[in-house]
């Protein structure tokens, strides 16, 4: 029998089986306070501090820049929806640190499976913002080549991508790209999901599969407190980072509004995955500062005071405060970032307006890689029907 690279050995289970490490830290990992003070790493946070020991002021400025840019182009997209240029937009407002922190934790060979809100992660993966608009404009069902950015298409059916991520990670294992110690070879997958998604059977099955096979995958749950109108209490009665331990997967809660802590915790989890340590569940505790999507009206179900409270924990403000206090950035830097963000937003606006509709017959494209006689015939009939119009003008 060939070598097995995957999971624990088969054979009968025993009560005395060796258990993997499933420790959960009891407190939320935080490194930058809402006021922008760098915390002395203590307790559980200390074990993560080493993962950001190499982070320079330049890196922090970069993360700041990323967060400002994604917030800016996200706001632009919301505006474009209001102007009728997009059918819908799902804003990431408030989740910039969770996304940029985790997005920056990836290596190029890692692969990300987003939901529909990971514009900040997309940015970190080099997906041009305008590319994200196709789906929301109704001009595309996807918009980019996942293999080009190691960034899967947005997934709308809640939770389903967590299984894809797990399967991809199982592929990485079979490619012997885990635990080799070669930094450019070992790879991991990060699956994004929301707090609401944790209720879906698919997500639990992803925890089962990844644990059983010890797959190199990180489940990154952005707990933004709401699933449309439903608060966390409709999904769970214990904190979500605890969900995974009963599957044999360690869980950790990180301050998702703290980009540094998020970077540290995600780096640690990805590194654990790449080195063969298996899956980790990260709960990034954050807040959806805007509506669920542009179709939503949060005033129907949550009080304004809640938002005000969370504004005090803004993910961008605290980095700015930190950089300013430390003297690591001056007004010129902040102005430059704003200018760049404005530029990107402007480009986005222009690109959105210039976006051409797909040709209608593209609805038949790529449904199959090769011929499919029945669909091909429908396409021919459709084209003939359209050609008839061109000849005769429309009916009625």
């Amino acid at each position, binding site marked *: 029998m060939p070598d097995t690279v995957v999971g624990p050995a088969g054979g009968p289970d025993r009560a005395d089986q060796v258990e993997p490490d499933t420790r959960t830290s009891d407190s939320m990992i935080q490194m930058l306070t809402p006021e922008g003070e760098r915390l002395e790493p203590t307790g559980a946070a200390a074990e993560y501090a080493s993962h950001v020991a190499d982070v320079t002021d330049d890196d922090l400025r970069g993360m700041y820049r990323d967060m400002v840019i994604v917030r800016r182009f996200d706001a632009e997209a919301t505006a474009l929806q209001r102007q009728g240029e997009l059918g819908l937009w799902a804003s990431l407002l408030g989740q910039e640190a969770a996304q940029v922190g985790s997005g920056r934790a990836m290596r190029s060979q890692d692969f990300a499976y987003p939901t529909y809100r990971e514009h900040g992660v997309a940015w970190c993966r080099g997906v041009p913002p305008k590319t994200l608009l196709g789906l929301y404009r109704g001009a595309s069902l996807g918009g980019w080549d996942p293999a080009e950015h190691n960034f899967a298409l947005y997934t709308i059916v809640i939770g389903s991508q967590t299984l894809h991520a797990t399967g991809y990670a199982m592929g990485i294992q079979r490619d012997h790209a885990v635990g080799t110690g070669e930094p450019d070879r070992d790879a991991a997958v990060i699956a994004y999901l929301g707090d609401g998604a944790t209720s879906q059977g698919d997500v639990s099955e992803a925890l089962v599969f990844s644990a059983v096979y010890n797959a190199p995958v990180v489940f990154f749950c952005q707990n933004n407190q709401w699933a*449309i*109108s439903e608060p966390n209490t409709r999904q769970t009665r214990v904190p979500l980072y605890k969900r995974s331990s009963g599957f044999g997967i360690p869980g950790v809660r990180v301050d998702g509004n703290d980009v540094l802590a998020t970077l540290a915790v995600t780096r640690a989890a990805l590194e654990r995955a790449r080195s063969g340590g298996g899956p980790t569940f990260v709960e990034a505790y954050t807040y959806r500062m805007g509506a669920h999507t542009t179709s939503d009206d949060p005033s129907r179900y949550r009080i304004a005071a809640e938002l005000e409270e969370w504004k005090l924990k803004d993910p961008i403000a605290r980095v700015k405060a930190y950089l300013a206090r430390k003297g690591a950035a001056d007004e010129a830097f902040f102005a430059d970032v704003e200018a760049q963000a404005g530029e990107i937003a402007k480009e986005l606006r222009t690109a959105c307006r210039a976006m051409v509709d*797909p040709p209608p017959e593209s*609805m038949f494209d790529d449904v199959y890689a090769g011929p499919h006689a*029945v669909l091909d015939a429908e396409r021919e009939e459709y084209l003939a029907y359209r050609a008839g119009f061109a000849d005769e003008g429309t009916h009625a």
Partner: protein
Amino acid sequence: MSSTSLGKAINIGLRAAMDHDPKVVLMGEDIGALGGVFRVTDGLQKDFGEDRVIDTPLAESGIVGTAVGLAMRGYRPVVEMQFDGFVFPAFDQIVTQLAKMGNRSAGNVRLPVVVRIPYGGGIGAVEHHSESPETYFVHTGGLRVVSPSTPEDAFWMIQQAIACPDPVVFLEPKRRYWDKGEVPEGSVLRSDDDAPRRLHTAHVARSGADVTMLCYGPMVRTCLAAAEAAAQDGTADVEVVDLRSLSPLDLPTVMASVRRTGRAVVVHEAPLTLGLGAELAARIQESCFYHLEAPVLRVGGFSAPYPAAKIEDEYLPDLDRVLDAVDRVLAH
């Protein structure tokens, strides 16, 4: 009587059913404070409380599965799938559990569960929000499947569905939620006689002599418009049959019409291949073989995934495609 939107008509119907029968409970994602993404359950949690209008965890299999249990305990759950594309996680519970229970329990267990699904396209939505999944349910023995096309029908049919002792898949034509019509607000369905029509009957929405057009849900308005256009054109006098019930089909009404006109066109948004048109064409050619002047024609969505919103109008049957089929069926 008052002019009411189709969505609101369902809301009023739900309220009437809940007033009438304390065992009626609503379940779904965001149906409470938000009133559902289409506001169909607006105000009901406020008035009936959280025990009867239940905001559920985000898990459709869980919603239908727990509804089965609630029904076994004597409740009449009305569950909402937020969109057509999200009924599939619940498919196993619907097909293997909900549909089969009456038969396998020899009638000892009845599951009066209504599965409400806003369905169909035409609202410019992102993917998974414009599906027409009726075939999956009509093919499944043990389910009843209905779809209203007007506010008045919506008002009565939701109450009839709730009163029905069997599971009913209730397909709501979401692009028509805002269509207005007269609804007898204040009326309550106490017995089936209260409703103007039985749940499983088709309705001849427009009489005509030349072609029978079979449609349901969102396509009824399109077909009526096409029939008017054909009349104005002088092309044909089209009879439009609003099927209303997809399982069972009201075949006597269908066949009576086709025997008179000798021609039939079926129209639906669902993909052509094994859409309802297939079943209707198969039945019509069998029952009306010697009456048919032309083959039964089908107009439907294409046998491909629902496309991006910018081109959905080309995917969906519209006035022109329906009229084209009328022309073709008359050309025989």
